[in-house]
């Protein structure tokens, strides 16, 4: 029933007309009030992060012993904390940079792999007619409920010991410890349910005529997927890519389990957690490290937020 009756829902376009809900709401609430509420909430939401930024720019004494707001009466700022965290000093040996690169090396493939696999899966569920497609889709959706923590140990055993049923090895011991591969695979697995769900919702809405025309022309599914579906799905794919990149970049639990804390593979969050553990009193260094860790996701987010909204929306909006 699902695959047959698709209604075409276009990627939402803002109506050109002024008569919108928000417009009316604004009139009702009267514009200055609405603006005031928005400004108050925005300020409230931003202050904590601003406090982090200010603290990270203060010398160690004031950063540790006074509130960051005293910067307005004691405006002494320094980049020394960043120099120390980045370059490595007496206290922070080696610096944060090796971990910074690890975060990239983990997050880029761990965003792309699940994306490609989920796109293929979503396409099949939406456009390759087979019995049980709906049931399968709901089962995949339902897998969102599995708590990550449940899957950590079995996966770790798989990566390090292989898998066998009785004496018959199904997957050999691949000895993957100390590489990025377990992290890529684990993140890919954990990302699939949500990715398939979002992408399927998007793809199910693609114009049926287009697909049918292609089939009539004798195109294979592989052809349709590459030539029609992929290009049309770029917004949804991009939005999920950002979502997944942010998630992987910010992850600590999977990283701790599969990568440990060595500078060879551990990401920046693991490093940050460690310096919090060992320099509880070094507020100025912790805040600088935290800010460096935040910068990349912020850049990614600000640069690509247009896509983020458009793609996530697909499927969840009922026209």
């Amino acid at each position, binding site marked *: 029933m699902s695959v047959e009756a698709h209604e075409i829902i276009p990627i939402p376009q*803002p109506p050109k007309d002024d008569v919108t809900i928000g417009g009316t709401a604004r009139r009702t609430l009267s514009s200055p009030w609405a603006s005031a509420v928005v400004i108050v909430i925005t300020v409230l939401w931003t202050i904590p992060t601003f406090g982090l930024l200010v603290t990270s720019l203060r010398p160690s004494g004031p950063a540790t012993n006074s509130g960051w707001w005293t910067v307005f009466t004691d405006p002494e700022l320094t980049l020394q904390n960043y120099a120390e965290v980045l370059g490595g000093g007496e206290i922070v040996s080696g610096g944060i940079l090796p971990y910074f690169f690890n975060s990239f090396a983990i997050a880029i493939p761990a965003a792309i792999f699940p994306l490609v696999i*989920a796109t293929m899966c979503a396409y099949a569920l939406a456009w390759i007619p087979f019995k049980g497609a709906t049931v399968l889709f709901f089962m995949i959706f339902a897998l969102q409920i599995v708590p990550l923590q449940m899957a950590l140990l079995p996966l770790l055993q798989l990566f390090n010991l292989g898998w066998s049923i009785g004496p018959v090895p199904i997957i050999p011991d691949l000895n993957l410890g100390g590489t990025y591969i377990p992290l890529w695979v684990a993140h890919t697995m954990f990302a699939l349910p949500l990715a398939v769900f979002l992408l399927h919702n998007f793809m199910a809405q693609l114009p049926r005529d287009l697909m049918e025309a292609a089939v009539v022309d004798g195109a294979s599914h592989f052809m349709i997927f590459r030539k029609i579906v992929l290009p049309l799905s770029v917004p949804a794919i991009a939005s999920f890519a950002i979502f997944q990149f942010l998630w992987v970049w910010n992850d600590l639990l999977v990283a701790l389990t599969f990568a440990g804390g060595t500078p060879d593979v551990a990401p920046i969050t693991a490093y940050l957690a460690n310096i919090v553990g060992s320099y509880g009193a070094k507020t100025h260094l912790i805040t600088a490290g935290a800010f460096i860790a935040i910068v990349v996701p912020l850049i990614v987010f600000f640069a690509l937020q247009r896509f983020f909204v458009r793609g996530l929306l697909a499927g969840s909006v009922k026209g």
Partner: protein
Amino acid sequence: MIWDNIIAGLPKIGIALAAVAAFLGILLILFFVLGRIRGKFANPLAGIMFLGPAILLLIIGLVVPTIQTISKSFYNASGQKFIGLANYGWIFTTENNQKVLINTALWIIVAPIFSTGVGLLLALLLDKMKRESIPKSLIFMPMAISFVGASIIWGLVYAYRDPSQEQVGLLSQVVLWLGMEPPNWLLLQPWNNFLLMVIMIWIQTGFAMVVLSAAIKAIPHDVIEAATLDGARGWRLFSRVTVPMVRTTLIVVFTTILIATLKIFDIVRVMTNGNFGTQIVANEMYSQAFVQFDVGRGSALAVILFLGVIPIVSYNIVQLRKERAVR
């Protein structure tokens, strides 16, 4: 030193990009080869190729571990002795655990409602507002911050010092400025639970706002026009037209945040470690399984979480099915 580190780091990026290239390359070749096959095997083959990798990974990564966890929840700490429902008995009869269950229930009610509610309010207010992108970006920003980072940020808000000392926590200072004496925030039961939820709401509101804002913009304007002509204004318009029109989006947003809330353990782990009456199921599960090595109890707690989400996911599935049936 910094440059040395940067140069030393570049090969890591190279490895990552090479892996991506290899992965895509293999797929392309497979596509090319399988795409040539015609006849009655074409469709099944395509199905296997498209579905296979995802299903394989899901079975290995999620389905099998789930089954293992469920079975382990009936065993003792070391997983060697079958003890029936004893672990579940422990969860429901220990006084501390009852508190844990109540806290978890509070979390999954309060955090999604406030995140979605404030997000909806902002989405309404921001619609058509000039320069909406600035507040939108700033409110969304916490979404891009890791829980480790968030806990450092909020540590600077909730820090407590004796009122006679110079304050380092913003909240305490604000209360002092107002002429009152600040409490030790994280000890303040039961309100400390809500102070921790604020962090979750801070992170998730931006997500709700952005998605709902787009949904509101996507409401066809003739619907609004018709409603306005019928005399619908303000609250009536909001409750009779807007909310029903974005209902599906609301449900998806609410569910997504709710599932995230159920699984979250980082905030509690870092801010209080579950002390001071703030423990929740996900963190207790981590402590039992990974700190106290009681895999049985840890698994039973995981199963509780799992069961807790089932009704919500089922509701979503029912909604989705209805919607599809309509189409």
